């Protein structure tokens, strides 16, 4: 399916125009000012002790005020993933490591969100996203029978702000094209040891027992608060155990504020 002509694309266009047009009238405390960020992320996935896949991609977002306590966001991302296929160790003469086949997929995501926020208390929000994954190997998405899969996801989230910590909960329902739904919940606790550093612990999945994640975000002051570095480690403990290691870099346009302020008043 061509995403350029998809209903999701048209929906996002309409929502974007609506939300972005509305924010000009807003005098909001949910988002101090419209702000943009652009990021790069790369990561490896490990399954059963061996590298399973590697991913790199770019992402960007804009967050903007709409009404008092009401903000909106639009985001997009592209990622390319090389999926190894867990071939056995290849010591035979006829199979060389160079012959190990790889499967790669490209992923595009668009998302829009609305949220109510009081920077002194917390926020609640809803979101809608659409994604498209296309494979570039001899592989098929089971629900579509093709090399392409589109997804829709609906999310609700809430966060409570303590002085130097945040407790957040999010619930997501992802609808696979021609397939079933995936539901998940994530509980996240964040702590700011300084105003430009954040440590995050999260538990997600069924009963919060399936996926655990540790994230570290650092926004160096000597770079004028224009960049932040992200390191995240995620362990998934399900029938298939997997670990994800991600590093990322984000660049912030114009709004040079410290990290805790950015999290609670800008994005």
């Amino acid at each position, binding site marked *: 399916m061509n995403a350029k002509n998809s209903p999701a694309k048209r929906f996002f266009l309409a929502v974007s125009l609506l939300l972005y047009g509305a924010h000009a009238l807003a005098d909001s405390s949910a988002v101090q000012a419209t702000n943009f960020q652009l990021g790069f992320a790369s990561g490896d*996935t490990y399954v059963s002790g061996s590298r399973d*896949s590697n991913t790199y991609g770019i992402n960007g977002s804009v967050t903007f005020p709409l009404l008092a306590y009401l903000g909106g966001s639009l985001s997009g991302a592209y990622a390319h*993933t090389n999926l190894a296929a867990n071939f056995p160790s*290849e010591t035979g003469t006829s199979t060389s490591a160079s012959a190990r086949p790889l499967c790669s997929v490209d992923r595009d995501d668009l998302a829009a969100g609305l949220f109510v926020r009081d920077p002194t208390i917390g926020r609640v929000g809803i979101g809608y996203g659409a994604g498209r994954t296309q*494979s570039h190997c001899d592989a098929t998405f089971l629900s579509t029978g093709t090399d392409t899969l589109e997804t829709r996801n609906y999310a609700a989230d809430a966060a409570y702000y303590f002085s130097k910590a945040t407790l957040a909960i999010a619930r997501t329902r992802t609808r696979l094209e021609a397939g079933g739904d995936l539901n998940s919940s994530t509980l996240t606790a964040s702590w700011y040891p300084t105003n430009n550093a954040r440590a995050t612990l999260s538990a997600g999945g069924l009963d*919060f027992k399936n996926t655990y994640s540790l994230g570290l975000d650092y926004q160096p002051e000597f770079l004028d608060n224009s960049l932040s570095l992200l390191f995240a480690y995620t362990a998934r403990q399900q029938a298939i155990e997997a670990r994800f290691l991600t590093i990322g870099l984000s660049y912030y346009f114009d709004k040079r504020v410290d990290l805790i302020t950015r999290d609670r008043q800008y994005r």
Partner: protein
Amino acid sequence: MRFVTSARRVSALLFVAVLSACGSGDGSQQSSTSISTNDVSFSAASPDASTPPAQILTATIDPEAIYVAVLHNGAAIASVTYSLSGDTAQIVVDPASPGGLGAGVFTGTITVVGYRCADPACSRLVSGNSQIVNVVYQIPPVVRFVAPYVGVAATADTAVIRGQGFQKFTVEGVTFGATAATTFTVVSDTEIRASYPALAVETYPVRIQAPSSPGAITSLANLVIVAAPAYVATTLVYPAAVSPVSQIQALRYDAERQALLVAVNGGQILRYAYAGAWGAPTTAAVGSLSDIALSTDGQQLLALAQTALTQIDPATLAAGTVTPAPALAADVFLKNLAVANDGNAVVTTGYNGSSNTQTYLYATRSPAFSQPATAPSMDNSTPGGSADGSSIVLAQGSPALASATGVYRYLAASQTFSVTGVSLNQNSIAPALDRAATRIVLNGTNVYDAGYNFLGTLPSTTLAVVVKPDATRAYTFDSAASQVLSFDLTASPAGGAFPQVGATAPAGDPGTGVRMAISPDGGTLFLAGNNQIAVQPAPP
């Protein structure tokens, strides 16, 4: 105001609590991908066999997977295709062509992986368990040819065995029928050189013993042992239907069937069979006939016409497969051929005048022309081959050319053409070689060794020449003496010329345009000219 703020805090915490209380369906159910078998094997009788049929596997994909990949590698597998029905995949495994692989044990691997969503938005995938299918493909070696395929009774000799896979599995023995080779050497994956003891008249299947081979080893090669002929000197006349004979294109001796094959007048093949006495010839017409030769295994007579090559039954002269010439430039024609022990015939082309034209290979068992990368363009080239088919020499040019042209050779072992260190312009006498290509006579006068080092000369009055199979003698038909002369090629040349050690007058004057042939034992010479054919015991 403080009350309002507190109320907000309570509401926010309540919202967090409500959300956290909602169940989720991420699922940690134990499930996996399974497959009907993890081992697939293919086998073919030989590299020459047809491709085995595909095999079908069934995989049941992890029900939580959203994405399934069926990937493969390894030489054994040509392709893997699959179709999905629900969470069941039918996987079709096509093996590679035996001809493309050759002999050996080949492996391949197929991996079936189901991928699950790795995060709530399914923006990442994580692989489930992989099902590995190990593919093993076994192809035993094959013996295709033995050359020369005719041997002489009660005479120990050597032969070149050609095939494929001789170095893939250890060859522990070579047999001719029930008789073991006295010695053998595996020269390459496609060649064995073996010696056989004195054998009785019979046809002996040539086999190799390689116990580690995964299956029976196919042999298509037979060594035919014949009695040394005891032909008396005589002449054979041409039938009235072809008289007068204006040109002899080729003269071949079919030792297996005791028959002489003569190509005359650019359109007739004459076959004189011997059964206690030489009989009247049978004939076959081939338009624009330019050359004839027996195939490596003697099963076909290759009749080369200017625009096609016809396989003819060497006993009945019944025409078989006709293979048209490759696309040739205007005025270019198929000219001559010589047969190598790899089953190919080297086919040269000619042009009415002086021009370089292409050289081709013709595969006798799968009739088709091909043009190897090393095949040279040559000027009206004429080939001459050794009886063991190991080497074919190609002379070119004409005495009218001002500068000498390079002599090429085709080595059957490597199936490549290369230029030799010899340059000359050919005359009407085709290159002559002994059985193992250790002595090479060019232009009927210049004698070289296997390395194309000049050794000495034969008389310039030579009209035709053959080299005794054991390379000890060169027999010429001499214009000055009108006799068959014998020269000792083992002696040191005196004044550059090999010494003459014998002479004999043929039973009758063969006439002009003489072609010569020799029996495998070296005891009988055949001379065909425009007058008649002379059968002549070789002089000492």
